[in-house]
């Protein structure tokens, strides 16, 4: 599904990622873990087109997407959420999700300004789909609230709803559980499982080990910009290299 081949990223003199190769199976939930500064978010930024890698290739299916811009990737069904929740704060919850349908609609400036019939139909479709996704994540009650007034946990859910509205093949979540309380984290885990059931591949960067071990089928460990290990939760928990990276050299 998603394959990285020899990714290097150098910021000035600092090597953030060094020869990272990994692959994510279609329809799986994959976790990327590692201590702070391991390069997890950098990796996400490269895959989603926000950064350009110094060298190496990224493939989505058979397609080489190494140099694609984020807006192109969204059209191909690759979408992400952010660690610090990037909502459209001044817009309503429903409007946020409706922006997610941007690539699934096509009326241009003039058809929108003149409200031609196909645009009116499309607008109706966008709204219905948007509401459907809000129901999926349980935010339908908040549809008309302004996004910046949402409590943090619901903001996270909104960001996920908006990403789902893109109808992605694969969704990358950057620390989806950060800042959530334990009840919200449990709900998040079940939401991620339901997303998987839709046939969407999920990749998440996460610090909450309990969550990662619980929902991920495959785990990739990064440390100091290098891939340390990849395997099932059990394999990772028993891997001596991983243990020493987390607990320090014994």
């Amino acid at each position, binding site marked *: 599904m998603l394959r990285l081949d020899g990714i290097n990223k150098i910021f000035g003199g600092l090597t953030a990622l060094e020869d990272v190769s990994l692959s994510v199976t279609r329809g799986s939930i994959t976790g990327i873990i590692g201590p702070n500064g391991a390069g997890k978010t950098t990796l996400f930024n490269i895959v989603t087109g926000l950064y350009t890698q110094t060298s190496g290739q990224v493939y989505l299916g058979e397609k080489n997407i190494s140099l694609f811009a984020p807006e192109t990737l*969204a059209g191909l069904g690759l*979408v992400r959420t952010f660690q610090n929740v990037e909502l459209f704060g001044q*817009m309503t919850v429903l409007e946020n999700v409706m922006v997610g349908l941007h690539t699934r609609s096509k009326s241009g*400036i003039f058809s929108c300004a003149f409200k031609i019939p196909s645009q009116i139909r499309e607008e109706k479709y966008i709204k219905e789909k948007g509401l459907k996704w809000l129901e999926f994540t349980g935010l339908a009650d908040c549809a008309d609230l302004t996004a910046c007034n949402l409590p943090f946990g619901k903001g996270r859910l909104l960001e996920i709803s908006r990403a789902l509205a*893109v109808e992605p093949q694969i969704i990358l979540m950057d620390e989806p559980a950060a800042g959530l309380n334990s009840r919200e984290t449990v709900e998040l885990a079940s939401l991620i499982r339901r997303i998987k059931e839709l046939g969407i591949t999920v990749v998440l960067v996460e610090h909450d080990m309990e969550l990662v071990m619980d929902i991920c089928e495959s785990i990739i460990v990064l440390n100091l910009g290098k891939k340390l290990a990849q395997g099932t939760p059990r394999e990772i928990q028993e891997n001596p290299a991983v243990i020493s990276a987390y607990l320090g050299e014994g």
Partner: protein
Amino acid sequence: MTKERRQILIFLFFAAAVLVIPFFLKGSYFLNVLVFIGINTMLAVALNLLLGYAGQISLGHAAFFGLGAYISGILTTRFPVDPWLAMMLAGFCAAGLAFVIGFPILKLKGHYLAMATLGFGIIMYIIFNETVGWTGGPSGLSSIPNLHIGSLFFDNDWNNYYLIWIFTLGIMLLSINLSQSRIGRALRAIHDSEVAARVMGVNVRILKVQIFTVSALLSAVAGSLYAHTMTFISPVAFGFNFSVELVTMVIIGGLGSIYGSFLGAAILTLLPELLRVFQDFDIVIYGLMLILITMFMPGGLISGIETLAKFVVSRIRGKQSNA
């Protein structure tokens, strides 16, 4: 009543008010002021699409207004071009120019974008002023023909009023439609978080250029209408001061509100007229009022009015439930 229904009603009410107002006015003075409010509303709405929705500043929008006016003026005075055709060409040229300069300029953000558009405005002003052979230079371009449909000439205040306001209402309606569509949402998304907008598949670079182009097109049409109704234009009207005044109209009225742009344009056109009674102090009071509005109505006049209306409604409801 659905939100959409309510909005249609508000627009119809507004349009009806605009169309009947002249019947209640005596003399040409007020009609003239209202013509100016109409032209300024078109410009404020055009700038609002860029500034209020997409969140991209332009300190050179008077240049597009001037470009529209001069292209229309030059084509109809120096060549036998029909004024309507001249208006279309003016819009087309301004849009073309905006499209070409939009790509490099709109890569810039914040203060740098402000500086670049400011520079563009100044360059255009110098061109209006210095190409005396074409524009007439500082002494202006006169005897620009009026627009006409068959034998109906837009050469008196009454006709001009309807000409200008039909265009204004049209531009307002199109802008309202646009703001409530996927394009409008994408623009507001850019305003709130450019990176999230990109991840959602919004082609930010192209969309910014597109809205800049549309904004320039509308401003140039307003410029052309200005030239054909005033029949005289000179560079003073298209300088840096007016660019700043347009930005002020949009902000005072309310960023991202089409009716707000009308309010902003109306207030900034009316204030200097109303404040004449204070003679030399008018500029002080004018400045003071702008400061007070921005301090106490940070969302602009339109949100001030909305807050007030909600307050009144809740007070009335409160009294009813008490009784």
